[in-house]
């Protein structure tokens, strides 16, 4: 982030290539998602051309079975993916970090119970867990899918936070800080969270990518956002019947999905290098 800082004599943090590519891919996705709030090439809900048109200058990615513009739907799908990914990670992070920190401070017995519960939750396939939550809620919606994925992520985040926080709490600087009168909440805010953040943020980025894939899977199964919300998963499912005659309908949302997930993973990789000030030296 910072250029060469002459006043501190510290070497500038080097941007890694993966961070740049990751930022570009994710940034493009965010830009497109924001754009759809104001403008889309065509009306996403009504036909704007012939059925199953091949890509042309008018319709860059062609049209679907009902003559709707594919590019428009993929762009709106980017918005859906971001909403679900961000929402799920936000839910997962807030519940997970809170539980993880509590477990790190809990008595031995309570900690063991929490650890075992989390292990059982994590052993459940994320998708299955999400399907159960969606099935339990009245109707499939963007929010039930987001909530479901958020809960699944929170178990993973809680387990990671617990282990990381316990490791930090054993460090000498925690005792040193305590001897100068820092309270336990103060220790969590000042030392524990900043020290586990580099690892946690990488995990959040990875979970974001996984949530986007899971949302696509749920939509593919008809458990995600219902129409008219365009979702890459539903686009893939709708294109299934015409995959031989009009393969672009399956390829295009597939590429969008892969690009966002790879972007997020590269971003995670890059964050790992940037997040730790002690790391700059060896590179």
């Amino acid at each position, binding site marked *: 982030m910072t250029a060469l800082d002459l*006043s*501190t*004599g*510290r070497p500038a943090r080097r941007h890694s290539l993966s961070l740049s590519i990751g930022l570009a891919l994710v940034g493009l996705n965010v830009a497109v998602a924001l754009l759809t709030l104001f403008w889309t090439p065509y009306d996403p809900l009504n036909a704007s051309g012939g059925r199953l048109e091949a890509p042309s200058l008018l319709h860059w990615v062609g049209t679907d079975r009902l003559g709707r513009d594919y590019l428009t739907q993929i762009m709106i799908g980017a918005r859906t993916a971001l909403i679900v990914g961000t929402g799920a990670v936000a839910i997962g992070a807030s519940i997970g970090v809170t539980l993880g920190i509590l477990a790190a401070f809990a008595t031995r017995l309570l900690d063991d119970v929490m650890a075992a519960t989390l292990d059982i939750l994590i052993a459940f396939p994320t998708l299955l867990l999400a399907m159960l939550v969606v099935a339990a809620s009245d109707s499939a919606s963007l929010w039930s899918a987001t909530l479901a994925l958020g809960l699944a992520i929170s178990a993973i985040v809680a387990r990671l936070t617990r282990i990381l926080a316990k490791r930090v709490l054993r*460090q*000498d*600087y925690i*005792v*040193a*800080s*305590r*001897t*100068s*009168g*820092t*309270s*336990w909440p*103060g220790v969590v805010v*000042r*030392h524990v969270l*900043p*020290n586990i953040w*580099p690892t946690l943020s990488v995990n959040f980025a990875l979970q974001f990518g996984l949530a986007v894939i899971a949302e696509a899977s749920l939509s593919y199964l008809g458990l995600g956002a219902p129409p008219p919300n365009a979702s890459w998963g539903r686009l893939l499912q709708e294109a299934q019947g015409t995959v031989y005659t009009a393969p672009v309908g399956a390829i295009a949302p597939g590429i969008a999905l892969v690009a966002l997930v790879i972007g997020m993973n590269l971003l995670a990789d890059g964050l790992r290098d940037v997040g*730790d*000030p*002690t790391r700059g*030296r060896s590179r």
Partner: protein
Amino acid sequence: MSALLSVQGLTVRASGKTLVSDLSFSIGSGERMGLIGESGSGKSMTAMAITGLLPANISVTGSIVLDGQEVVGTEDKRLNRLRGVATAVVFQEPLTALDPLMRIGKQIAEPVRRRLVREQGRATRSAVDREVLDLLDKVALPQPERIANAYPHEVSGGQRQRVAIAMALACRPKLLIADEPTTALDVTTQAEILKLLDGLVRETGMALLFISHDLPVVAEVVERVMVLRDGIALEEGAVVDVFSNPSHDYTQTLVDAARMFDEALGRTGS
């Protein structure tokens, strides 16, 4: 006059083993006392017991009265108000005693902020910053602004220990506990840090509990010593008396060992 710290019959046990047994001593305000013994003699256990920060699986019995407050068996919340006010600690290993991800200035600022709030009811940013640079200057660190902006791994071991001392001083404690503060440093740095600590303690008039295995080091900074072995106090008295005329064989062997070491190094006994 009641002592600043009064330890009576302190016994520390962990999983059936007695680490410190029936230890009693007291330190008056402004007094400098040394606790000597080899590794595992219970010196550090005693220090941690005074701060009330021993893990829950270690049992502490007896009485520790610090600044009029009983420490043993008192809930953590109340003890926390004592920490930093009555005591502050400088640890052996200066690298691990500093948060690796926090700039040095910020680490010193926190105890400064707490003290200013306590003393004046508020702590403005500029007042805290001024005090932090002042403290860095006081522990003789060059270019305080640069050090304040640096991370712990960017400064040397000796400088880190100076930072740790600045953090302890930031609290303006009545009693400074120095737990082997020079052990992890090389000999020249040791001498500098020792001189610094000695000067600061005399200047501020705070009491000092100096923990070390190194006799000459202890003799330099304290007035009174207590010799510990296997958690038992062997003898206690003025530095001169204990070292020139040890009443216990063990103390004699420690003194002899130190003397032999000095001779081997070609140093003249001081």
